[in-house]
Each structure stands twice: as C-alpha cells, then as structure tokens.
C-alpha cells in the first residue's frame, strides 16, 4: 500500500498526500514513511507561526499563504489545534480564517490535532513536513496551538519561528513572562490596525535591545488591512535558517544506531539474561558485566 501511495505522491496526487499524513498522525508505519519520504528538500522552507490564543495566527497564516501564492510559491499549511486529553476529540477550526481556493492546486491546508499538555504542535509533524517536502511544496507554514509550551521543539522543526504579539492595554506583557522572545526569529506586532500597535512595537524593541539578545526583526502587520506581508516575508528570508535540518539528520542517525544496538541485544536472548543474573548474584561487578555484554555483541 505504501509503495502505491508514494508513487502517487511523486505524481502530486493530493489524495495520496492526504492519506499519508493520516497514516503519520495515526502512527501507522511511521518509521517506513519517515525514511521513504527522505530528508526534507533544501528548497522547502518551514516557517512556524506562534503566539497566544486569539492573536490572529490562522488569519495571518491564511493571508501570508495568499501573498506567497501571488509570488508563485506553492504553500502547505499545517494548522494545529488542541486535542482533549480525556476523549482524544478535537475541534479543528483554523480553516475558518483561511482562504478557500478550491481551484488552486498550489495550496494545501491540513488541520492536525495536538495532544494537550506540553506540545505546541501535533506529534510527528517532522514526518509530515518530510512528506510535504517530498510532494514538492516550496513553503510549509506551521500554525502552533499557542505559545508558551514546547516552543523549543518548534524551533527545531522550523527554519524560522515567527512570534505574533498584539497591542495590549495592560503594562504587563504576557509574552515577556513566557520567555517567548527566546525562540522567536521574527516578532510581528499583529493587528497593527488597532490602537497601541506602535507602543507595543516600541516595547518589544526595547526588550530586544537588552545586551545579549540576538538580532531579531520586529515589524507590524495587519491581516485585516493586508499590510506588512511583503516586509514579513523579506524578514523571514533574511533570517538565518536554523541548522535544524542538519541536526535532525544527525539525531536520526544516532537513533538508528541505538535501534540496531537494541536489536542486537535482543537477538542475544538468554545470554544477556545470563550475564545479568550473574551480576545480580554478584559474581560479576558492574564493569565486568558491562564488558561481557559488549563482548556478546561482538560475537
């Protein structure tokens, strides 16, 4: 079945793409799909859009996708919404704010449920991104469930992390507390059509000018007015891509090596148990036992 799906994926069959993503979400043949999809191609740029609930992530992702389409780039959107920890159910409503372009093959929108708790995005989004890259999308926009938890994981998945903040009335800025600026590569003061946007922009810039802060672009965008998208994309392009992709490959290799090691141990069967028993009976000390175990593998 996977052979057929991947063949169809090569021919840009959307149904095959959709089905592969379902299999990934359901953890069916996950490892096979991961390796068959292969490394994410260099040209596929992954941009995460994060920020608190209601800051306008979906709306901005939708508008940014339209801007990118106007530039001739193909775009896939992975929109994450939280899943109930009790029932596993989820209400995936981000599409409401996104464009509906049924005749345009260059845009693909997929809603995914993220396990609640510690994750800002759904599980196995890394594999989904590989599949989307294999299909050939130029850009993958990843909408998180919200900021605050699992942000570092997001910066490992994406080339660039865009943090949205909105004009606030109170003096206390929520995102400041959350330490969000640490993962952001670009900060967008969204809803710039609202009063107080310039003040918020000033506050963010001030925070970022503290010694020791990385250089981060801060800009204003209004999705309602359709303003600021060109500058936003420029900032994304200028932001150095995380070395994430390379790191991911290295991690993959180590993971594979560990698997092989585990398999070899497993194949030793009783002989491993034997060593452990002798160690338990204190016939062997720890170093000797470890040594014997490794010798088993060398056989």
């Amino acid at each position, binding site marked *: 079945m996977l052979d057929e799906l991947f063949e169809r994926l090569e021919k840009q069959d*959307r*149904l095959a793409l*959709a*089905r592969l*993503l*379902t299999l990934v979400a*359901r*953890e*069916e043949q996950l490892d096979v799909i991961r390796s068959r999809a292969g490394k994410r191609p260099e040209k596929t740029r992954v941009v995460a859009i994060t920020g608190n609930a209601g800051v306008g992530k979906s709306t901005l992702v939708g508008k940014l996708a339209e801007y990118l389409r106007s530039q001739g780039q193909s775009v896939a959107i992975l929109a994450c919404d939280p*899943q*109930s920890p009790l*029932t*596993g*159910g*989820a*209400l*995936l*409503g981000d*599409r*409401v*704010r996104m464009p*509906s372009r*049924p*005749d345009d093959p260059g845009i*693909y*929108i*997929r*809603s995914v*449920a993220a396990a609640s708790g510690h994750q800002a995005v759904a599980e196995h989004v890394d594999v989904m991104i590989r599949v989307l890259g294999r299909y050939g999308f130029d850009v993958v926009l990843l909408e998180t469930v919200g900021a605050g938890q699992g942000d570092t994981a997001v910066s490992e998945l994406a080339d660039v992390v865009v943090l949205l903040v909105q004009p606030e009335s109170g003096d206390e800025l929520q995102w400041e507390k959350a330490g969000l600026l640490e993962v952001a590569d670009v900060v967008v003061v969204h809803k710039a059509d609202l009063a107080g946007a310039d003040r918020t922009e000033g506050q963010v810039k001030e925070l970022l000018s503290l010694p020791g802060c990385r250089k981060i672009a801060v800009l204003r965008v209004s999705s309602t007015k359709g303003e600021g998208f060109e500058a936003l994309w420029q900032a994304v392009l200028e932001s150095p891509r995380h070395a994430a992709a390379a790191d991911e490959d290295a991690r993959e290799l180590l993971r594979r090596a560990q698997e092989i090691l585990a398999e070899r141990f497993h194949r030793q069967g009783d002989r491993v148990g034997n060593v452990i028993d002798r160690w338990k009976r204190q016939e062997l000390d720890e170093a000797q036992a470890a040594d014997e175990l490794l010798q088993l593998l060398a056989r």
Partner: protein
Amino acid sequence: MSKQPSLRIVLAKVGLDGHDRGVKVVARGLRDAGFHVIYPGLWQAPEAVIRTVADEDADWLGISLLSGTHMTLVPRLIEQLREAGLGHVGVLVGGIIPEADIPKLTELGVARVFGPGTPMEDIVQFLRDSGSRTHA
C-alpha cells in the same frame, strides 16, 4: 505501534443562510465524543467543501442545510465527491428535510439524515456503529 484512531469528520454549512449555531453544537458534541471535527466555516461553495474533504482525508462529511435546497445541493455534492475519488466518504445530512425526501436522499448515497433536535447520542452512536469508511 499505532493509535486508536479518531474518526475525522468535516462539518459543512452549505448555501447562503447565515446560521451556524446548530452546526457548532454538533461540532462540540462530536468533539466531546472523541471525534476530530473539521469546521471550515459558513458559506461554503460545494467545490470548497469537496476540497476540504479531500485535503483533510475525512472519513465523514456532515452537510447542514436549512435553506430547503437539499434536493439540488446534496446530489451535486455526492456527484462531486465521486468525481474527486472520494466515493468512500460517508455522507450525513442535517437539517429540516421533508419526510418524503429522506428515502430519495438515502438512495443517492446519503448514509443518514438527522432532523433538527436529534439527540447527540444518536449521531455519535450511528457514527461509531458505522465505523471508519476510509480506514477500516
């Protein structure tokens, strides 16, 4: 290893009337019953609904109609589903449908028609019993 999969259902509000309270109640009810509910919003053109079902790899499509256009919209949607290679997707219809039209709709391929005020449990039970069309 694989997870107990949640069924994916697209709830679409087709046509021009602007009320989506009913759909939202059903959406929340299905979420609480463990479904993954994809809600694309009001005023969906049939083509947009088909695209959503395709891209989301939905198991079910729930169409809500209040406007009395069911005998034109539902056949059109079902035909477009088939043309798009989505004949395996189960179709539910919700709304005020005259009794006499229900057999016509089921003959067209609608799995079940739910009138207004159908208890949530009935819908949930029906979907559970029917299971996943797509990924059985």
